[in-house]
């Protein structure tokens, strides 16, 4: 559509930045690379906000339309099957553009200070730009195939960023783990895409949605009729697509990569593992929500996986001691909220869950990025990730402490901070659809408040006698300005974004949604959260014997939780015993003997032939001409026979 064509720059600028900083990483200084990256992302953020302003300022018949700004055919195989590349603007993609560019801009700015003195800073900024480009391409995709391409690009760039400290074996292992686990999930995604493309007759989102939500259409009848193992193809494709989404969004049981991914630089965690990449799965479900809505089984799966992941991660978070891992589990838990928000949602008037989920995605991006950046500042200060090395930092880092408290209050759902509003809507929607999920959500909210304040107290209060050990670096106050400014901006966003009338903008059908405020439900939720905070205050405000006593009392259960329910061990066991023990020898034998044998055979045959045709190439012209003439006779005969 005319008027929006400038949004192509939102994709071009990060790509150019990636090329410039990547190719020139040896020639330009890291700071200059940082400035280039920050400037280009800042321009993108301004463009996105401008786009959001003009898009949401424009109604057509009371509905926000879905505008295909660009739609270029890329590979056209046949009339029906062609793959396009394009950019679509609709409420969720516009919202995601704003979220991604804003957080990415903050992280770029913050990284200039955080990575000060690193020699490979140029490479870091080029990876960061590549990631931003991929993520932005993902959210504006007009079709499943384009989304898949960018989805994998996101995976690659996150692999590069997690493994940025490539001299650290744990970082390398973490990057591989993240890549392999998400790749495994993406396999399901790809199969799901192919099935959906097959039954829907197209990869385009608008075509798929309009065909597969119309019970009269022939595509819908084939999709729901034909089946495999008694389950319709449509259900299969949705479940498999959700598998891809669950892998990227670290939903149980594909979450194991997320805590380990914290080996990457902290700003990277803020960008990738808080605000953007991990919500790709939520975005995917939201993108295909009308189709999911047609299949209650798939939607229920989304709801239950989300709710269980939320609870599961919150329980683990209560026992961890690594600041970033606690935040990682909290991310997983909050994404669980978004997932079950979608899972319990209806369409149109009943779309409170959808709207709440998107709202939570937005507010969570702001406060979780703030938490990670705050954690980065703390880590920068004490040079350790362990909470036991921290404590009583509120006097040394007052601004960081205040901002961290703000984010903790927000994630705990205390009004008037942003997290309260979005979580409230998800919980209300859950109560209307599924009381059990509501119960889980409510309990998790209490746990969230508990572990977040546990973290806050352990870092900023909790005087420890052994804290004042001599430090190798001179103690300076607070982080540098480039790190403080993004945090303050995010803190401001955390304060105000809750009052944003989201229900008017981002809804399941593009129409504004009426929401009613339930004072009783809010009171219950606030009460639960306050209880969590109170418990945390009792245990962790000052050093005391209670935490250890409870841990001892819980005994085996505590150990189980502390070891993250042994999920990693189970995966290792399966991998070792089953794959390495059983499948690998067979595959190995097949590869050595059958595949290699075939190749060697081909090689030998080719070699023999190759020698034998040497005689053709005698160098004598009359020999050539003889062949030439023989060839033309053969052609003549063939022409007459065939």
């Amino acid at each position, binding site marked *: 559509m005319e008027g929006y064509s400038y949004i192509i720059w939102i994709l071009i600028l990060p790509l150019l930045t990636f090329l410039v900083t990547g190719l020139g990483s040896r020639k330009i200084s890291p700071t200059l690379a940082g400035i280039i990256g920050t400037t280009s992302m800042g321009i993108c953020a301004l463009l996105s906000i401008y786009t959001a302003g003009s898009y949401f300022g424009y109604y057509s018949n009371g509905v926000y339309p879905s505008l295909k700004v660009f739609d270029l055919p890329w590979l056209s195989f046949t009339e029906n099957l062609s793959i396009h590349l394009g950019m679509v603007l609709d409420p969720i993609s516009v919202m995601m553009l704003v979220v991604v560019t804003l957080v990415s801009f903050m992280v770029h700015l913050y990284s200039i200070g955080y990575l000060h003195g690193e020699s490979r800073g140029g490479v870091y900024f080029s990876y960061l730009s590549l990631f931003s480009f991929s993520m932005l391409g993902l959210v504006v995709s007009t079709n499943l195939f384009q989304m898949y391409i960018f989805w994998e690009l996101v995976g690659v760039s996150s692999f590069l960023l997690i493994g940025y400290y490539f001299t650290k074996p744990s970082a390398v292992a973490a990057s591989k783990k993240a890549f392999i686990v998400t790749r495994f999930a993406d396999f399901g995604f790809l199969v799901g895409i192919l099935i959906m493309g097959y039954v829907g007759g197209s990869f385009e989102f608008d075509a798929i949605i309009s065909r597969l939500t119309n019970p009269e259409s022939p595509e819908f009848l084939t999709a729901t009729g034909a089946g495999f193992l008694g389950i319709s193809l449509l259900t299969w494709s949705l479940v498999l697509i959700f598998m891809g989404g669950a892998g990227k969004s670290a939903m149980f049981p594909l979450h194991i990569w997320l805590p380990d991914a914290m080996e990457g630089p902290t700003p990277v965690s803020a960008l990738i593992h808080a605000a953007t990449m991990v919500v790709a799965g939520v975005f995917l479900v939201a993108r295909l929500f009308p189709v999911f809505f047609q299949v209650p089984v798939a939607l229920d799966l989304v709801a239950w996986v989300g709710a269980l992941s939320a609870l599961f991660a919150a329980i683990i978070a209560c026992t961890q001691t690594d600041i970033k891992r606690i935040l990682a589990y909290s991310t997983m838990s909050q994404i669980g909220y978004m997932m079950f928000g979608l899972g319990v949602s209806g369409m149109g008037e009943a779309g409170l869950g959808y709207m709440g989920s998107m709202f939570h995605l937005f507010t969570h991006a702001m406060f979780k990025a703030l938490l990670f950046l705050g954690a980065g500042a703390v880590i920068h200060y004490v040079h350790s990730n362990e909470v036991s090395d921290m404590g009583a930092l509120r006097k040394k880092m007052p601004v960081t402490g205040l901002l961290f408290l703000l984010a903790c209050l927000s994630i705990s759902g205390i009004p008037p901070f942003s997290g309260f509003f979005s979580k409230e809507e998800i919980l209300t929607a859950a109560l209307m659809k599924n009381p059990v999920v509501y119960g889980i959500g409510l309990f998790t909210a209490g746990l969230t408040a508990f572990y977040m304040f546990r973290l806050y107290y352990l870092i900023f209060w909790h005087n420890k006698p052994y804290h004042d050990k001599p430090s190798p670096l001179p103690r300076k106050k607070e982080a540098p300005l480039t790190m403080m400014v993004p945090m303050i901006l995010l803190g401001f966003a955390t304060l105000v974004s809750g009052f944003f009338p989201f229900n008017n903008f981002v809804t399941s059908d593009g129409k504004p949604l009426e929401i009613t405020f339930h004072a009783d439900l809010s009171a219950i939720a606030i009460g639960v959260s306050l209880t969590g905070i109170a418990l945390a205050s009792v245990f962790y405000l000052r050093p005391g014997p209670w935490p250890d006593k409870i841990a001892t009392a819980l005994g085996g259960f505590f150990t189980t939780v502390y070891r993250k329910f042994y999920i990693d061990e189970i995966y290792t066991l399966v991998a070792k015993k089953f794959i390495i023990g059983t499948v690998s020898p067979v595959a190995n034998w097949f590869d050595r003997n059958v595949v290699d044998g075939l190749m060697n055979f081909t090689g030998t045959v*080719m070699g023999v032939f190759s020698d034998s045709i040497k005689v053709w190439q005698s160098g004598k012209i009359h020999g050539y001409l003889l062949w030439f003439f023989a060839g033309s006779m053969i*052609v*003549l005969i*063939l022409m007459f026979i065939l």
Partner: protein
Amino acid sequence: MDFITLVSLLRMELLLTAGLVVLLIYKIFYEGARDKMAGWFTVSVLLGTFLCGIFLPAEGGYFGGMFITGSLAGMEKSILSLGSVFIILFGRTWLENSRHELEFYLLILSVLLGMFFMISAGHLLMFYLGLELATLPLAALAVFDFNKSRSSEAGVKLILNSAFSSALLLFGASLVYGGSGTLYFPELNSAITFPASRGSSFLLLAGFSFLFTGFAFKISAVPFHLWTADVYEGAPVPVTAFLSVISKGAALFVFVAVLYRVFPLYSETWSLVTGLMGALTMVIGNLFAMRQGNLKRFLAFSSITQVGFLLVGVASASQLGHAAVLYFMLIYLFSNLGAFAVVSVIADKTGKETLSDYRGLYKTNPMLALALLVALFSLAGIPPTAGFFGKLFLLNSGASSGMIYLVIFACMNMVVSLYYYLRVVKAMFVDTSDDPIPHFNSGLPVKIVLACSVLGIILLGFFGGLFDYFTSLTFGLQ
């Protein structure tokens, strides 16, 4: 039929002719003075025809229908001009040692002029004239290394073999005339009635077969490829590049046009023969290429294999195939000329051209090694380079015409070809050498060629609208 129409329709040909005349006058008056200027002048003339063919293609016929042009012909001529620009640019290093730089440009322009007339021919004799104009200067180009006996041998072999193929072609043309009473393409097309009566069409079919062989010789399809080995080996590198890309491209364009527009009624027959020939060409090309230790010979032979893949598209006898051939040719031009540019500049600067010399190239000349890597990946058809998409569309067109076995066979040959393309990559990046090629500056013209080819290889794959545009240009079997 006035002067203005003539100028307007033959604008690309006249531009080349004007360039030729200017070069000739320059040669006469300023013997040996500033040949460098001549190089840039030739490049700008060719860029002029390139742009003209893309943006201002003429549409219509002249000389009573002997000369026909349109947007498709314009596009084909543009592709050939672009390739010639690349060859002149990377040939500069080699030409610096030659006292006859200007003659090289003259000959290149003459060959191109011949090719342009070939492409635009609307009459068999016009086509023949163009063909000869494109062949004779080529033989002169092949002997351009005067002090090397292999170069003279290449020239002699090229001229003798061409003469033989021309003879067959003319014989075919005379039979066609005997069978139909005309040599104009459109009239020929309507004169063919198949399979109404074998008796009356016997002469036509026999004539067609000889024409077909003549083309097969030009694109060096097996078994008419034997001359290529000696000619490619003896000729200077830029000339080999010209033979294996530009000459083949021109012949293939005309081959497709003649098959699709003049003899569509025989399509069932020629499609099978072409498919068979394609399969043979792939295998034999692979067998030759895999045993080459000399990079120049290796590239030349691998180009035979690529023609085999192109024949799959030709054999599909569909509009899709026509577009795929055009698209692949453009990609092939970027890939093969990029590779030739690297090989040529290394041979000229250091005199090294065997595979073992290339070991450790990445350490000393990383940019050259990377450019060659991209080009070889594209030739091998590894995604996401454009070569992958080119092959994809070729095989797709074959498959959609139902030639599944041919497509499977082509895929198997792609695997074999991977082996020898990657062997070069391994030598450059993995192997180490005690005596690597020293670092050197390859000079601006070569850098331009490499930058263009790498960009082309990467961007063409993503710029899918181009294929649609090519499809819209081709109206083969409608």
